[in-house]
Every structure is written in C-alpha cells, then in structure tokens.
C-alpha cells in the first residue's frame, strides 16, 4: 500500500532500516585475513561435532555384490602415496603401545589368526571419486581385545612406514566393519595398496584409511590427529 512520505522522515526511516541489516555485516569476519582462519576453523570443528553426533555405531555401511565390485586394476592408488616406503615384509611387526595390557611387537600371523572378515564396500576419496572394492582382514575390535586395550580409551593412533599417520575415534575403531586389513580382492595386499597392513574403514573418508601401518597406539590424548587433518582437513570425517 502506497503511503505518502515526507522526504526527511523517509531518509531517517531508510537509515534506521538499513542499520537493522548490520548483523549481515558479521559475515565480514570471513573477509578479514587475521580472523578468517579462526572462523573457518570454528566452522570445520562444528561440522566435525555434528558428524560425530550423527555417527551410529550400529549402523552398517552399504555392502555390495561381487558383480558391483570394480576390477582390481580400476581401484585407484592415490598419487600422494609413496608407493614403496621400503617395508621389509619378512621382518615386519606391528608395534603396539599405549593404554593396553599387552603392548609389544605383533606379527602379521597373529592378526591373521583372528576371525577374518571380507567385505565389498565403497571407498570414498575426499577428492570426489569413489570405488567399490573388496577388502579382507581382522576386525579392529577383535585386535583391541587381543591386546587388552583400555575400554575407556578415546582413540587409536597409527604411524606408517612412510611419513603418514592417522588417528581414529574409539567408536569408529570398534565398529564391526572397521578392519585391520591385510587383503584386497582375496589376495595379500600389494605393495602399492599398503602391504602388509592398512586400515579399511567404510564409515570414514579414504584418507583416514592409512597404509603401511607400523605402529599402533591406544590413547586418550592425540596431539597429531592425522597427515591431512593437520593441514586443515576435517578430523572426524565420518561418512
């Protein structure tokens, strides 16, 4: 409805109404270089919190029929990986430490003695591609029981033969589909795919599924979260 306005009053009203938009200017924080990193960090941390909140330990990632699995040659090897960190397969052991009753060196045969799971699951890379692969190994939760891990510990942290490292929240570590993976496509891991041991975690993004694992620590204090997380990527990144 048209209203007659006196120009001076209209200017006052316009100014007042414009000032009411000031909250929008708060977005300017993102444009200020010194504040930008901080507010983006808050945003990422919030997203991680929500991700942690919607994670359901009993919810399984989709599994696929053998016919839906991509051929082995089509399972990508990410270019960032050093595909030969010089692992001595004959003498390799997993060094277990932290809040566990039985720390020390574990041979691959001990891990292979645990019940073997095989699963066709989707691997999702942060880059945007995905591939359905076939993975085999021991349940990480079975291994945690084997080493007598403290049930109240919050994280599993792994180090790798190259300069990679990762950590996992305990709820995901104990998820039934999280594997200490030593097989792909029913054959022992090839060198490029992380021989002799990698993580397979269908409920997490690809970069959390570390290859060439050499050290395994159960802890509630993680300083270095992960190779990519410490460069600004999401820490929880549950799918």
């Amino acid at each position, binding site marked *: *409805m*048209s*209203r*007659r*306005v*006196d*120009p001076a009053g*209209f200017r006052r*009203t*316009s100014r007042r*109404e*414009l000032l*009411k*938009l000031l*909250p*929008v200017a708060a*977005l300017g924080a*993102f444009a200020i270089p010194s504040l930008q990193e901080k*507010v*983006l*960090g*808050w*945003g*990422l941390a*919030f*997203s991680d919190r929500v*991700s942690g909140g*919607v*994670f*359901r330990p009993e*919810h399984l*990632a*989709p599994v696929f029929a053998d016919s839906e699995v*991509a051929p082995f*040659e*089509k*399972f*990508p090897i990410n270019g960032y990986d050093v595909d030969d960190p010089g692992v001595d397969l004959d003498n390799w052991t997993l060094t277990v430490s932290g809040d566990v009753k039985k720390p020390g060196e574990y041979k691959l045969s001990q891990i292979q003695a645990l019940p073997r799971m095989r699963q066709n699951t*989707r691997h*999702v*890379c*942060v*880059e*945007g*591609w*995905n*591939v359905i692969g076939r993975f085999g190994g021991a349940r990480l939760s079975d291994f945690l029981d084997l080493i007598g891990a403290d049930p109240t510990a919050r994280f599993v942290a792994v180090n790798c033969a190259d300069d990679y490292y990762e950590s996992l929240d305990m709820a995901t570590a104990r998820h039934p589909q999280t594997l200490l993976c030593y097989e792909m496509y029913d054959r022992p891991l090839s060198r490029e795919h992380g021989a002799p041991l990698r993580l397979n975690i*269908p*409920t997490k993004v690809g970069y959390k599924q570390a290859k060439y694992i050499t050290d395994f620590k159960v802890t509630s204090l993680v300083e270095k979260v992960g190779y*990519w997380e410490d*460069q*600004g*990527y*999401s820490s929880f990144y*549950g*799918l």
Partner: protein
Amino acid sequence: MSASAVEIVRDLGKEEAAPMATAVYEHPLAVRVCHWLNAVSLFVMAGSGLQIFRAFPSFGAKIPQKNLMDWPKSLAIGGWLGGALQWHLTFMWIYIATGLIYLGYQILSGNYRQVLFVKRDLPGVWPMVRHYFFFGPKPPQAEAYNPLQKHAYTTVIGLGVLSVVTGLAIWKPVQLSWLTWLMGGYGMARLWHFVVMWAMIGFVFGHLVMVALHGWNNFVSMLTGWKKETIKAK
C-alpha cells in the same frame, strides 16, 4: 490581485510543483536479512563447491579419468581442496539456517501467499515471458508479484532445498545411506548436486538482470524495506 493574495498563490504554486513522494513497504526485515545472508552464502557455497569440483572434475570413473571441464581456479573460492572444504563446511550451516529462518518466517507470517506459485498462476506465466523477452504487451499487474516472479521465487526455494538434500547425500553416504540410494548412489548424488548448483546460478543471473532493469528504488527496497515512488504533481 492584492500583494498578499499573489504571495499566497505563489506559495501554493511552489508546493504543488514540488513532487510528492510516496513509498511502499515491500520487504520485512526477516526477508531482507535472510536475502543478504543467503546471497553471500550462496556465492561462497558455489565458489567453494567449484574448487572442490576441481579436485575431481569428472562424473565418471577415476580410472581412466575423463574430466568434464577445467574450471579456472581464479573463479573458485578456497585455493585448494582443503581450503575449499573449510569454506563449504562452514558456510553450509549459515546457508541452511538462513533458509530455515526464511521459510519459517514466510509460513508463520502468512507472507508466503504473495510469492508462492500456485496453479492459478500458470496461465499468467507465458504473457510475462512474452513481455520480458519478446516485446509483448505488459500484462496488468494485479498482485505484488507477477506469475513469472512467483514461478522463479518458488522454484529457487525448491532448488535450495535440493542443494542441501543432495549435499547431505554426498556428505553422509553411510549415515544417510537411504538418501544416497534415493539419488541413485554416491556418484549420481554428486552429479545432481552439481546440476542443481548450475540451475541456481541460472536463477541468480536472471534475478540480477531483473533487478538491474527495475531501477534503483526497487533495489533499495531490499535494503530498507521501502520502495520510494515519486509522483510529480500536475
């Protein structure tokens, strides 16, 4: 005429010669705040989304990789995948909250009625298209928003909802596996998300052209709420 009578007539003449101003209150504060928050958010979401897309600019397999396009880094936000994800995963909350507040306000205030496209508006779309694009006659304006505007402003809300839904299917393909399945799988969800973004960019382009064509006073009404109409006295 006496001197004083001439003065009175002269003064009256001056008053009537000056233009009378009227104004219409068009946009409530909630609509304006949401509009500008969303304008910035959508810009950041699209910009950072395109940088994310650059990391794997394909909707096919990784091996062999066939890129759909090489989107320039200069037209993206974030600088690299890690940076872009920070922008995208931060602004998505502002984007979603703004959308919910806008929808909530429109529904609770009843204000939605003037902008929601309904069946009754269908016959009026073509005459508006003909007027805007093919030099057709200007149809009589019966309501605050013409049928083509209603169509645009209703569709874009649908697109906004789809952008969030497809985004969630990509972000949580395990926890929301049913949603990702509904989209046709992870790869398809990513494609729909991309397509919806382009549809929204198309809307923004058309919207900006219309804003430019409808003058300064109309633009200002999205800042102050009031659209000044200046009528010259006879």
